[in-house]
Each structure stands twice: as C-alpha cells, then as structure tokens.
C-alpha cells in the first residue's frame, strides 16, 4: 500500500483528498479515533513506532509525512 492509500483508508476519505495541507481541522473524518487508526496502520505498514510527541504533533498529512521521513521512510 502506498502512503496515500494508507492515509485514505485510515481516514476513510478519497485518496484525492490526501494532500499535504489536509489535516484534523480540514477533514471532518479525521477524528481522534481515526487518528489512532492512522497511526496504528502506519506503524504496521512501515514496521516502525511513533513516540508520544509524534502522535500528538501529527495534525496534518504534511506532519505525518515529516515524521515518517525523519524515520527514513521515503514518502
């Protein structure tokens, strides 16, 4: 699965809506439970783990991408 597919699947949105600017304030489906689902699915997909600050700070797609890149994932 691509990064976009994982995010779209976790947040239950059309992949076209997975832009860097999209975030908790712009996607109504990005609820707190879906945020957790997103984190867990990313952990499973890329075989890594997020720390507390990374989970709390990832409020947009750009943030999430940034966390993954910092962990060496090419997304």
């Amino acid at each position, binding site marked *: 699965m691509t990064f976009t597919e994982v995010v779209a699947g976790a947040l239950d949105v059309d992949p076209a809506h997975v832009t860097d600017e999209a975030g908790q304030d712009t996607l109504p489906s990005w609820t707190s*439970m879906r945020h957790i689902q997103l984190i*867990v699915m990313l952990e499973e997909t890329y075989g890594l783990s997020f720390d*507390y600050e990374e989970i709390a700070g990832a409020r947009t797609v750009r943030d999430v991408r940034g966390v993954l890149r910092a962990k060496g994932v090419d997304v």
Partner: protein
Amino acid sequence: MDARIRWQEIARESAEPVVRVGLLASYTIDPLIPYVGVALHEAGLPVSFTAGPFNQIVQQCLDDTSVMAAARPDVLVVAPRFEELGEELDTAVDAACAAARRWGSFLVVVLPAVPEDRPFGHLDDGRAAGVAATAHEVREPIRAELAGRPDAWVVDAEQAVRAVGTDKAHHAVMFKFAKIPYTEAVFAELGARVAGVLRAVYGVTPRVVVVDRDGSDEPVRWLRESGARLEFRDGQEDVAAVAERAGVPAGAAVLLRLGTKPEAWRDELVRSGLLDRLPPPQAAPRRAGRTTTRPALSLVDFIGGLDVEVAVAPVTPDSAAKVAEVVARAKDFTLGTGELDLTGDREVFAVSVRDKFGDYGISGAVGISAEGVVDVFSLSCVVLGKGVEDSVLQWVRDEHGDIAFRHRRTPHNQITAGFLADAGARVEEIA
C-alpha cells in the same frame, strides 16, 4: 488492517443491525469494534455498536440517563481492568450485572488480564497477596458467578494476551496518548472471542468447513478425524454458494485453509469458530460465586467514594503548555477553541484533579475572555464521570456569579453546551 478497512466498508453499507452491542471498558475499547463487527457481519449477523465513555463502567450502568442506558443494547460487553479499577473492579461487574438485567441485555464480561506489574519481582508468585494471586482471587469468582447465568458469558482477556505474547500485547505509547492499553493483535484475539460467543448465542456458529479441493490430503484427513463436516470447493467458488449446496445458511460455512504446520492446525480450527458450542448453563465446579450480600450501590455513593479533589488555579508559565495541550486534545468535553490563546487580556485557569486512584494533574481549563464570558471550558476525558464538571461549574459560579458561557457550535462541543444548559447556566451560541 483488513478488518478495519472492511469494517468501514460494512458501515457504509448501512445494513439494518440485527444485534446492537454496547461496549463499556475502563480503557478505550473502540479498537475492538472492527474485529467483532466484521466477524459477525460475515456470519450473517449485522451488528451496530455504542461505545461508552472511557472508564465510566459504573457510572454508565447506574445512571438511567446515561448513553448506554439510552442505547438499551441487546448485548452489553463490559471490559474492566485491574490497572484502572483496582478494588472497584467488583463494583463495576456488579453494576454491569444489574444494568444488563434492567436493560434486558445479554452480558459479556471480559475477565481482566493479570496485570504485568510485579512490585515483589520474582517473589510475587509465592505471595498470597501478590499481584497474580490477588488477580485470580477476583477473576475466578466472577467466572463462577456468570457461569451460572443463562444470560451472561465470559471472555478472558488473559487468554488474548497469552495468545499474542506479553511482550507484544501492550502498547505503552498508545496508552499514554489515548488510554488504549493493548496492541491490535490483542484486540483481534479479543474480538474473535467476543464474536465467537455472540455467534453461539445467536445460533450462527459455523457448522461446515469449506476446503479447497486442490489442497494437501493430510489436513483434510485431520479435519475428518476431528469430526468436522467437510464440503469441497473447486477454484474460487464463493463460500456462500458452497453453503447453499450443503443446505446450510451462508454464515454457517467457513473456509479453512490449514497451513503446512500440523502443530498450528488445532489453533486454526479453534479460530474458525467450529468448536464454539454453548452448553446448558452450569455452575463452575469447586469454586464459589462472589458474595451477593453487598448492598446495592447508587451513583451518588459511588462518586462520593472516589474522593475526588478538584483544584482551580490561575495558569502560570509552568502550567501554560500543559493547559494548552489539554484544551487542544479535549474532544469529549469542551466548549471552546482547539488552540488556546494565552496572550491578551484574558484569564485562564488550570483545573487539577485527583481521586483515590491517583493524581491526574492538570486535566482541564477555564478561560474567561476580556468581555467577561467563559469561552473555554474543557476537561480531559480521563476525569469525566466523576462529578468534576459539576465542581468546576460550581467554582465558576462561586467566583464569577451568573457569568455567560459563549461558544461557536462544533461537532465536539454540544455535550458541554448541553451540560451547561441542563445545569441552568447562561449559554450563548455565536455564529
């Protein structure tokens, strides 16, 4: 991951639920939903869920105006943990039993896993008051009591944790962030067990094993010896079609692909649900049920017994970051703003909470704007259901009299607005 995506697809189909399941836990239990939902849907039992608020089992069960009381679920799943409830765990089970009777719900109690913490190290095993001994002393009477009831069953979280392995069962970061103690693997195991119970209760336990004809003979021989009824399919024939050919409902046939390791076949068979059979109610041997002489508990008594202490103090440079974080993360009980503005001419107060289970630290905030209205009134879900919201509202009234509460309607703040309106506060909604 498949179950979560599949559950979203099923939820979009909006099939009329046959069974309404209520979930109450001392932790965030929402991750269980896809695993139970998909398993039951595929068994031909469409299901809907109502998840109660975090760690409010007793409050939800005792309060007939609660979310769960309003839902009147067909099945009430209650999952307490020692880590959150300690000696109140029995109270939670008592309250759940009573509520299930009042609501006419089938009760499923998730027996709590034995805590991992061992204050006495390796010597815990031999101590009569050790963690393991104490946990079993609580667990087994609950099992014994429910074994004698026709309208209740037990699912054991300890078995789910053991199946996954303790080193892969817990998710410390997710617990800190969202009070989710277990990994997805544990929720998958728990979900399979809850679904197995409900399939049996509703009479949709699998009865036929569908086996691919092109597989090895050895697993087929083993399945025959296990007593399973087999149906063979060719190619990618739909399992429902095979079921129809066999004369059973679609949910009563299950596709089983046994791998190459015979030692894993028994687990696969268990996982398929073929062995799930509900026996007549029976008392567990040798063990006595829990004492039933405890007086009935009221909601007021329970909350009074929590020894809740609430302190409200002006925000300081040391507490500012924590207050801002609490306000940003408050989703269940919040009036105002995702991002708290601590600059300018406004007063902001930090709400700190502790009770007999521990010190929750800064758990909420009240903000009063320059115009003299309350526009921030946020509490963390961890402290809800303990009367904290009433205490903070009383503090506001004591300090500021009949002050107005102002908010702009969002998906998150209607619970708080409703609470304030019910309490007789002046609530102003702005466009």
